[in-house]
């Protein structure tokens, strides 16, 4: 469970995010939807404790990202935007490294890594050096790395960027599976189809402000629009004017 309370972040004179509050519940996939530069990444980065909010706070399973960042991080699996992996390590070693940093040891660490290699269908390239991996292979490695400590909450920043159709479908299936196991999944995207295909809950964000939160159906109805896309365009348009 992730709860953000009036998060605010400035970079110099620019206000990136203002009074952002949102809730991502367990067993739900929540989509953070907004145009480029809306403040999606800044919001997520405050949630996964890489940025410190100027004001406000967020709770990860009840742990404050400001006051107990270590406890919050332990409950988070994170796939940052353009997540890089270590080119001189194999995919398996990349995962093992994060397993160790997450406090796994010995046989448990190796077993969990093997489990993820199987779950994400990485057998073919698991023991090859990551140098020269395709975009899809890199993403699966980064995803396995984020899941190695079985986090209750999963944060993904634009996870489908640069993926082909097959890889996107595989990712969707995985996120749905995690949701069904009771995990809290929060991901950002600027692609409407992706959000409407996957999300139980949508948070619309633009210019650093949350415009709407609810199920796709609720948002569509409240905006009195025929589709989620129409509702989105109306919401964004209202702010732009």
């Amino acid at each position: 469970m992730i709860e953000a309370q009036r998060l605010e972040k400035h970079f110099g004179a620019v206000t990136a995010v203002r009074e952002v509050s949102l809730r991502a519940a367990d067993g739900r996939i929540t989509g953070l939807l907004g145009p480029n530069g809306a403040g999606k990444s800044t919001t997520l980065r405050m949630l996964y404790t890489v940025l410190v909010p100027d004001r406000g706070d967020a709770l990860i399973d009840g742990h404050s990202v400001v006051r107990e960042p270590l406890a919050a991080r332990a409950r988070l699996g994170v796939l940052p935007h353009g997540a890089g992996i270590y080119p001189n390590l194999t995919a398996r070693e990349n995962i093992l490294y994060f397993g160790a940093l997450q406090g796994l040891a010995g046989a448990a660490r190796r077993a969990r890594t093997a489990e993820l290699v199987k779950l994400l269908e990485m057998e073919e390239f698991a023991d090859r050096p990551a140098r020269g991996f395709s975009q899809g292979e890199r993403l699966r490695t980064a995803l396995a790395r984020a899941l190695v400590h079985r986090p209750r909450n999963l944060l993904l920043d634009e996870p489908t960027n640069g993926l082909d159709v097959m890889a996107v479908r595989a990712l969707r299936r995985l996120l749905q599976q995690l949701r069904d196991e009771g995990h809290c999944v929060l991901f950002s995207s600027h692609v409407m189809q992706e959000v409407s295909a996957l999300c139980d809950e949508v948070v619309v964000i633009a210019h650093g402000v949350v415009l709407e939160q609810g199920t796709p159906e609720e948002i569509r109805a409240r905006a009195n629009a025929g589709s989620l896309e129409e509702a989105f365009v109306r919401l964004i348009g209202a702010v732009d004017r």
Partner: protein
Amino acid sequence: MRAVLTVFVKEFRENLRERRTLLSALILGPLLGPLLLAGGLTLRLERGVGESDRALQLAVAHGERAPNLLIFLREHGVSVTPVDYDEAAARAAVRSGRVQQVLSVDMDFAERLAAGAPAPLELYADASDLTGSGDSARVRALIGQYSALLGRLRLAVRGIDPLLAAPLAVQDIDVSTPATRSVLILGTLSYLVLLTMLMGGMYLAIDATAGERERGSLEPLLTVPVPREQLIYGKILATSVYMALSLSLTVAAFAIVLRFTGLERFGMSVNFAPGVALEVILLTLPLVPLGAALMTLVAAYTRSYREAQTWLALLLLVPTVPLAFAGLLGLRPHLALMAVPSLSQHFLITSLLRAEALPASWVALSVGVTLAIAALLIAAAGGLYRREALLG
């Protein structure tokens, strides 16, 4: 503490697979310095030996005007070639390098010599030609000897004791020992040791900070539930281990190479037994964490791999600054200077190789101050990793 170790093991292993790091830390650095020094020494040695053995070549114009001088020169190993140059031809011949020097006997040489007046000779040589400077000095010395001989004979003929013309007698007494004569070489050696040591950790320091950020793997790393300073401590530790390996290999290579260069033929000796090599390594070791922390800190501030490379290449020169100042000011080692990292190591290494006793207070101050500065830099690097500006 376990995270520090995890990061260390990963960085150490990953860089074992990085050809650039391996090459500079474990192969190029440790081999280049010793080979450079040995090559330079051998070259100098061979040239020095060749010069004093070679017959002195001298072109003489109008030698028939001074037959006794020619006999004297030939007796002293000069190979005389008669030429018929006038002044312009002599200048041209020397300038073009056809001959290294020309001795020209003036027309009135014999006449003035007989009259007891200074008899004129002209020696043409090119002062800017370094390879010939030794030769013309030898010719001038021989002619000087001949001149002094004639002078003594003239005095004796006139019934005057020739010793009256030599009121002073200066004797040069050289107190240098073979070990102190090698001081220039030793200065170069300690400088090369410090340089290769730093080079050994350079690529790892860049890769672990600027490289990690450029690849986009820094952000995921910062989301693990580990205090962030521990991550950078692990990276500094890995850099330190590579530097220590590089240091040990370099010193070992120097010890082996210097054994085969034959410094004794120079009249020099270097006290570089295995035990001394070990002491050199131990005395330089405190500089390892200092260098590793400094390079990591600087690389972590830069925005890209290439920028980090530029800065660290400059940083490699930093330990040479105190060495250069000490050389310019002619500083001699004393206690206060042991508080200057890199300079103190340089003095300690040099003293060790000259087989001089090291005061315990020097060693203690050098090690203490160097480690204290290292601790400060490591803490500063930890502080940097706690700041969110790190992500750039």
